[in-house]
């Protein structure tokens, strides 16, 4: 057969704006994340259960903290909201591992979606689950009527926890690009439990032996945990906490970019 001369109309074609970012994708990504029952249980149900178990101690609502700004129940609630939020954002980021394993990230490279837009979608998805996690713990905290602090502190600490959990979206992305999909989710549960102990989310760091305390202060949840409690405790910000958070942010982001570059360069 003879091939007819065909002139494709290529001049009218345009790439979509924002590198392919759009709300439909964000909606579907959030739906995907919440569809994974294990993720939802670990990131939302477990922190709430921990609060019900450990945050409602008889004496906690009587013991005030931060010169009367609030009580111990509120303090524990912030810790556990942080725990849930960082689990959420780490899971959200680490989903790239599953996408890589299933060949989806390669498929996405055959669409207008730019790598930056993809990462933005991943981070925003992680933040949506993180917000749900914080909200769940805070709502249960309010409903059980033990945690007490001013309305401003409820909002301020909740918001700080949520924004702070962004650090762990970078951590999740790094792990997601670094590790194979089969074990990344289980590993995250374990790593974050250890980091939460080291960061003082479950037990105040001051109760550990001095040697343990010295190490704990370098771990990635320590600085963040101190900072999100600062509004309640009203004890001022120690610059080492800020350095801790920024240093880990640089480490996680650099690691994620490094692995991401490697991932997209291959094949």
């Amino acid at each position, binding site marked *: 057969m003879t091939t007819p001369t065909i002139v494709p109309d*290529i001049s009218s074609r345009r790439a979509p704006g924002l590198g392919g970012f759009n709300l*439909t994708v964000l909606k579907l990504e959030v739906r995907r994340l919440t569809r994974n029952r294990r993720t939802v249980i670990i990131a939302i149900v477990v922190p709430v259960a921990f609060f019900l178990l450990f945050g409602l101690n008889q004496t906690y609502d009587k013991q005030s903290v931060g010169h009367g700004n609030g009580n111990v129940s509120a303090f524990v609630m912030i810790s556990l909201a942080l725990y849930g939020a960082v689990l959420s954002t780490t899971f959200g980021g680490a989903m790239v591992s599953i996408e890589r394993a299933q060949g*989806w990230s390669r498929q996405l490279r055959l669409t*207008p979606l730019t790598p930056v837009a993809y990462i933005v979608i991943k981070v925003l998805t992680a933040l949506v689950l993180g917000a749900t996690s914080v909200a769940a713990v805070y709502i249960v905290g309010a409903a059980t009527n033990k945690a007490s602090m001013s309305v401003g502190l409820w909002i301020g600490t909740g918001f700080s926890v949520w924004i702070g959990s962004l650090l762990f979206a970078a951590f999740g992305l790094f792990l997601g690009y670094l590790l194979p999909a089969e074990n990344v989710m289980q590993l995250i549960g374990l790593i974050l439990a250890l980091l939460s102990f080291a960061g003082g989310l479950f037990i105040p760091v001051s109760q550990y032996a001095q040697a343990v305390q010295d190490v704990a202060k370098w771990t990635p949840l320590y600085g963040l945990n101190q900072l999100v409690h600062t509004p309640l405790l009203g004890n001022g910000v120690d610059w080492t906490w800020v350095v801790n958070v920024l240093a880990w942010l640089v480490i996680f982001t650099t690691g994620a970019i490094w692995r991401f570059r490697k991932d997209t360069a291959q094949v």
Partner: protein
Amino acid sequence: MTQTSASGTTRSANGAAPPAVDLTGLHKYFGHVHAVDGVDLQLSSGEIVAILGPNGAGKTSTIDIILGLSQPDAGRVKVFGMEPRQAISRGLVSAVMQVGGLLRDLTVAETVEYTASLFGGGKDTRQVLRQAGIDNIADRRVGRCSGGEQQRLRFALALLPNPELLVLDEPTTGMDVEGRRGFWAAIRKDAENGRTVLFATHYLEEADAYADRIVLLRRGQVVADGTSAEIKAMAAGRTVRATLPGASEALLKAVPGADSVEVRGETVLVHSSDSDAVARYLLTQTAAKDLEITARGIEDAFIALTGDDAESGAATMGAVQ
């Protein structure tokens, strides 16, 4: 020459549309392996071209470069006159890969909705599903779909941007005969609208049956490029058989273009890559009659062109089938 597109706009400055694919001096190394070794290839719009070759011939490496999934170590790649990534972001090029590339925890409809939104949206998901014949499984998770259903979904996704060039990498791997036939019927029908199709395959019969043009790769090099008939002739030539009483081999050796001559009693068999010249000679210069010209199959051509020798060629075929 001035060409006019369907929409009535006149093409680029020099009057000619850029080729759909333009590869010049392409090289790609993986460690010590020279996967792509100086490939030059131009595809015109509307062609259906097969890249045929044994495993490891450089088919997938070449396709990955065309799709911008991999960067060549040397050489130039243009797709519709632009960088592959630019062509992809404009929806000019899309591809169906052999395995993977789908999220198991999304439903079929969600996968279409997701991908369509990346191309700027504005597509009716239900209609896309209906056209692909998968509207009955719209709400099924991709992970629960059969291989054939997943392949139909991949095909539907690839058509979403209405691409000018469709690239298929071993598209029918794992399909049964009927599935393969149905798939190619769909591609053929689709290509009638002028889409350029480039597919890699190691199924000889697929290349033979569905491509207008076959590019044969061997060890990263283009060893043959032409129509199915040309490839067969190029590799194996044709055999001219005639009845010629009293033929002598010495006389027949003088036949223009003969590669080998065999005389069996009154029957003469001349093997040649220019069978026309042989036939003309026999019919005009000798008393030959009952002349027959037979081509060898494409499998023979494939072995002859891609094998290091007959033995390794046979081994390749064994692996393919």
